[in-house]
């Protein structure tokens, strides 16, 4: 490790893409993540590592280029913002069905529809409950700093290949646009060390042909395939839960927030404690798999919980499932590109639980 730089989240993601030894990026520009492709274009990754950078004619084309390249065992990625990610959903479902690894970044903006270009977290349901069709899941990583916009590229590719499943980084306009210091990891070789024995790289006499497909005309075969996929999701739930705790152990009231909202809530915790309210914060890092067990444990210790999201309340449903009625779970959030201040969150906490 070493090199420290001041970068935007989107730029750190793009630099990490090159350094991770990624083989190709396919995308289509959209605010607030246009810096990803701008940065890649300026870096000329074909000269640095041989990485392909291609601006597709649309988001639909980009995700299908990801599908094709991933099928050959290559380490590939795409990125977009909310409306563009909606367009990619069919392709994502196909990638999951065909068990193909890839990394997808969503820098979320206000919706629905074209919405606004300002920060939002309204794509939680789409990301964690299956935005495309079929019973499927993806590991969803929620970066809360520019550093994590870089680190999660490496982690995301590791997990994508470990499970042969797409990994989604669910970011937002704040984390994408803000600049912070980032410690960049060393350049990794492009030649991937992952198992690619399943890839369609040309049949050799010593093995059966590899087939990449998501279609099974026989429902019995499809059901077996679905059981196999479900077993992977169970393994993810056992092995891949990640979260970060701030002042949770002595907390009377627990805030639960991810991404930019978790950053805002870290300050809310300090402000609340200055007022004599013992607040804590649990930040899910993986939104799927969700830190259900930890939230359930904390439910037995606190007087109340409040989920804080830039949405009408989506993750709060997973919190309530984890808590299972043991403690009251409130919600606070702004929508449409408006962002709550740390003070607003404290005021909402005091109001919901009639503190003081």
């Amino acid at each position, binding site marked *: 490790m070493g090199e*420290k730089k*001041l970068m935007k989240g989107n730029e750190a993601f793009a630099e990490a893409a090159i350094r991770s030894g990624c083989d190709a990026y396919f995308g289509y520009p959209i*605010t*607030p993540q246009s810096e990803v492709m701008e940065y890649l274009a300026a870096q000329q990754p074909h000269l640095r590592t041989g990485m392909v950078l291609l601006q597709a004619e649309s988001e639909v084309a980009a995700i299908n280029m990801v599908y094709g390249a991933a099928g050959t065992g290559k380490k590939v990625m795409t990125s977009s913002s909310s409306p563009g990610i909606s367009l990619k959903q069919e392709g994502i479902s196909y990638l999951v069905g065909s068990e193909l690894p890839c990394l997808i970044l969503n820098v979320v903006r206000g919706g629905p529809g074209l919405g606004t*270009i*300002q920060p939002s977290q309204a794509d939680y349901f789409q990301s964690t409950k299956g935005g495309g069709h079929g019973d499927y899941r993806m590991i969803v990583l929620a970066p809360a700093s520019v550093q994590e916009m870089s680190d999660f590229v490496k982690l995301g590719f590791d997990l994508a290949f470990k499970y042969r499943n797409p990994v989604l980084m669910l970011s937002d*306009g*704040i984390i994408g*646009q*803000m*600049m*912070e*210091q980032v410690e960049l990891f060393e350049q990794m070789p492009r030649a991937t060390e992952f198992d690619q024995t399943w890839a369609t790289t040309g049949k050799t006499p010593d093995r059966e042909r590899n087939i990449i497909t998501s279609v099974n005309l026989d429902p019995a075969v499809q059901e077996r395939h679905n059981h196999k996929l479900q077993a992977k999701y169970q393994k993810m739930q056992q092995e891949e839960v990640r979260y970060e705790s701030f002042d949770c152990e002595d907390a009377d009231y627990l805030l639960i927030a991810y991404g*930019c909202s978790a*950053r*805002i*809530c*870290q*300050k*809310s915790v*300090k402000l609340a404690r200055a007022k004599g309210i013992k607040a804590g914060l649990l930040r899910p890092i993986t939104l799927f798999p969700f830190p259900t067990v930890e939230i359930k444990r904390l439910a037995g210790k606190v007087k109340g919980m409040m989920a804080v999201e830039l949405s009408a309340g989506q993750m709060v449903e997973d919190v309530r499932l984890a808590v299972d009625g043991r403690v009251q779970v409130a919600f606070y959030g702004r929508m449409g590109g408006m*962002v709550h*201040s*740390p*003070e*607003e969150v404290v005021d909402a906490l005091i109001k919901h639980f009639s503190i003081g």
Partner: protein
Amino acid sequence: MNEEIIIAGFGGQGVLSLGKILAYSGMMQQMEVSWMPSYGPEMRGGTANVTVILSDERISSPILKQYDTAIILNQQSMDKFESSVKPGGILIYDSNGITRHPQRKDIQIYVIDAASESAKMSSTKTFNMIVLGAYLKIKPVVTIENVIKGLKSSLPERHHHLIPENEEAIKRGMEYIKKVA
């Protein structure tokens, strides 16, 4: 040390660059820094603002409601951010184009006529560096040496010949800032 700053004005005044140079300078001084712009369709003529935080500790929220220092460069920003300065905090503004001057009695108010001073220099683009100098005179959170280092790492090399002029602008800002209240 924890300094929370909002810099607000018109797009094109160098508001975002000023914030960026402050952030780079803080980084040169081994501080934690964050730079959060108001992004959107706010090019020349629209309003632009940026929140910069310099701290000895890990930075929590990059989005704030109250600031230690507000640097205000047009009337719209004055209307929006005068009330956001923490009691006892600092407000620095350029009086050019200001029709309603700040009214608060519980903060320290300074004026820097950066627009007219920059008109006397070889380029009016030195405007934001005059403002930076004014700010650093009141709050020396970073040293000029680190600002110059910050400029070197944030500017492309083809613009490095402009650094002496920027240094001069910072010094003028330090000289011409006046306390109002």
